[in-house]
C-alpha cells in the first residue's frame, strides 16, 4: 500500500491558515516563511503577518508584546533558531506567562544536508525545562495540523516542534488530538516503544520486524512531551517487560530522559533510550543520518 507522505511543517501550514479565522491569531517569522510554511498564513492574512527579518530574539520579544495586547502570536523559524538562538527571550516569555507559541521547524538530524549547525538536537530539553511551557511534536502532517489548531485555542506558552522531511501519514482524520494525551498506536505485551515525531512511524515498522521474531511490541506516540501523559507511561511499563524510547533528539533531556524520570520515580523497569547519543550531527541525506 502506498502511503501519503507530507512533512509536519506542511500540516502546520494548513493548520495556521485555519487558525487564522480567529482574528487575534498573528504570525511572525524570521526570514524563513517559505521553509516553515508560515508563508501560507502570510498569503491569506498579510496584515497579520510580520516578517521580523533575521532577528529571532526580537521576534520572540515582539511576540510577547503582541500577546500582552491580546493577540495569539505564532513565532516561527528553524528549531535551532527559534529556541536556542532566542533562549533569553523565550525564558522571559515563560516567566511572563504570555500566550506565545514558538514554532521550530527543521528539528533534529532529519534536517539533513545543512549539517550540525542547523540540526536542533537539544530544543526539547531547552523548552521543557521552562515552567509552564507546553512542548508538542506531532508524528505526521495530519497530527501537526490538529496540534496547531489546538495550540491556537490553548492558553499559555508552547513550543511546536516540526520536521523538514516528509513523513508517512499514520494517523486518521477522525483521530482526536488532545494536548497532554499519549496515543496507543499498537498494543503489545513484551516490550513498548515510546516514540515522538518522525520516529513514531519507524517504531511501527520496528514493531512489525519484532513480530517476525515473535516479540509483541506496543507502540506509543507521545506528541505532547510536556505535560507528558505520565499515567499512560506508567501503565505501559506495567503491561510490558521493557521500555524503549525513540526520538530525533539528544538522549539527554528529551523524550527518553522524560520517560526515565517518570519510571525511575514510579515504576523502575528496564529501559533503553534511542536518540542522538551526546554528539552533533553532520551533513547527509536524512535517511543516511
Amino acid at each position: 500500500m502506498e502511503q501519503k507522505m507530507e512533512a509536519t511543517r506542511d500540516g502546520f501550514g494548513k493548520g495556521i491558515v485555519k487558525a487564522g479565522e480567529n482574528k487575534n491569531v498573528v504570525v511572525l517569522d524570521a526570514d524563513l516563511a517559505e521553509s516553515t510554511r508560515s508563508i501560507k498564513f502570510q498569503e491569506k492574512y498579510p496584515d497579520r503577518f510580520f516578517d521580523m527579518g533575521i532577528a529571532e530574539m526580537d521576534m520572540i520579544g515582539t511576540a510577547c508584546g503582541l500577546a500582552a495586547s491580546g493577540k495569539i502570536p505564532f513565532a516561527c523559524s528553524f528549531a535551532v533558531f527559534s529556541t536556542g538562538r532566542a533562549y533569553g527571550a523565550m525564558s522571559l516569555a515563560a516567566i511572563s506567562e504570555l500566550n506565545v507559541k514558538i514554532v521550530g521547524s527543521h528539528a533534529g538530524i532529519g534536517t539533513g544536508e545543512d549539517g550540525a549547525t542547523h540540526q536542533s538536537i537539544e530544543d526539547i530539553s531547552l523548552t521543557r525545562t521552562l515552567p509552564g511551557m507546553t512542548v508538542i511534536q506531532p508524528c505526521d502532517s495530519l497530527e501537526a495540523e490538529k496540534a496547531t489548531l489546538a495550540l491556537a485555542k490553548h492558553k499559555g506558552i508552547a513550543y511546536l516542534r516540526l520536521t523538514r522531511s516528509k513523513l508517512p501519514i499514520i494517523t486518521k482524520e477522525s483521530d482526536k488530538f488532545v494536548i497532554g494525551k499519549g496515543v496507543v498506536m499498537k498494543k503489545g505485551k513484551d516490550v513498548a516503544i515510546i516514540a515522538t515525531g518522525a520516529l513514531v512511524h519507524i517504531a511501527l515498522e520496528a514493531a512489525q520486524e519484532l513480530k517476525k521474531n515473535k516479540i509483541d511490541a506496543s507502540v506509543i506516540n507521545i506528541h505532547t512531551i510536556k505535560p507528558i501523559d505520565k499515567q499512560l507511561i506508567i501503565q505501559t511499563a506495567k503491561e510490558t517487560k521493557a521500555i524503549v524510547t525513540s526520538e530525533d533528539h539528544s538522549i539527554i533531556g528529551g523524550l527518553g530522559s522524560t520517560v526515565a524520570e517518570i519510571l525511575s520515580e514510579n515504576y523502575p523497569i528496564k529501559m533503553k533510550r534511542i536518540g542522538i547519543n551526546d554528539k552533533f550531527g553532520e551533513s547527509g541525506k536524512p535517511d543516511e543520518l
Partner: protein
Amino acid sequence: MVDNELIQHLKNIAKEVRKDILTDTCKAQSGHPGGSLSATDIMVCLYFNKMRHNPKKPSDPNRGRFILSKGHAAPALYSCLARSGYFPIKELKTLRKLGSRLQGHPERTRLPGIEASTGPLGQGLSFANGVALAGKLDKKDYKVYCMIGDGESQEGMIWEAAMSSGHHKLDNLCVILDHNRLQIDGEVAKVKTIEPIADKFRAFNFHVIEIDGHDYHGILDALDQADKIKGKPTMIIAHTIKGKGVPYMENKAEWHGKACKPEELQKLCKEVC
C-alpha cells in the same frame, strides 16, 4: 506651554519617589538606587501628567503603556505606581522580600500596572514594538513608552528591536534613553562606548530629541513633540545623572546596585533635592 505650578507639583512628587527609592532599597538592603534616581523625573512626568492611564482599570485596552526595559529601576516604577494608586504605598516596604508582589525586577503577573516583566537587559524594546504593532492592528490610539538604559544599549537585541521600530514606522512608540553614563563596571564610554548614540538612532529611522532628563520643561515638551511626529518612532535621549537628587550618590557607579546603610537613611532622605 507648561505652567510652573504643574512643574512644582511634579517636583514635589519626585521628591517623595526619591525618598521611596532610598527607603525601600535600604529596607531590602539590596536593589538599584542609582539608575532609579536618574529615571525618576521622567517617570514622574509620565505617570503624573503625560500618560493616559487609570489605576482602577489597569487592563483598560486603551491605556497608555510604560515598559521599563531597564527593569532594575523597579524601585522608581513601584513608587510611581503606588503613588498613582495601583496598590497601597505601605506595600513599597515589602520590596524584594519573600512573597512580595514587588519583585527585585518587575513581573507583570504579580503586580497591577506592570506591563512587561523585565530585568534581563535589552528585551523591553521588542516587547514595546509588539504592543505598538498590536495598537496599529487594532486601530487604537494608545501611546507606548519604553525606557531603556545606556549600558543596556550594548545589548544586540536593542538594535534588532530598533530596526523593527523604524521599519514598521511605529509613531505610536516613544522610547526614552536614560543616559546616565554609568554602568556597573564604570563609565559606559570606557566599558564600551555607545556614541554617537543620537546618530545611531537617527540611522535606525528614529526622530531623535535630546534633552536634560531632569528639566521638567524639557521632558514635557519632548513628550508632547513625540505625539506630533508621524511615520517614525521617537527617541528621547535624556541626559541624566546617576543617583540624581541624592548628592551623596550622584555620578557614582558604585550606587548602581547597592543600598544605603540603615544608619544613613534618614540623613540621605533629608538631603533629597
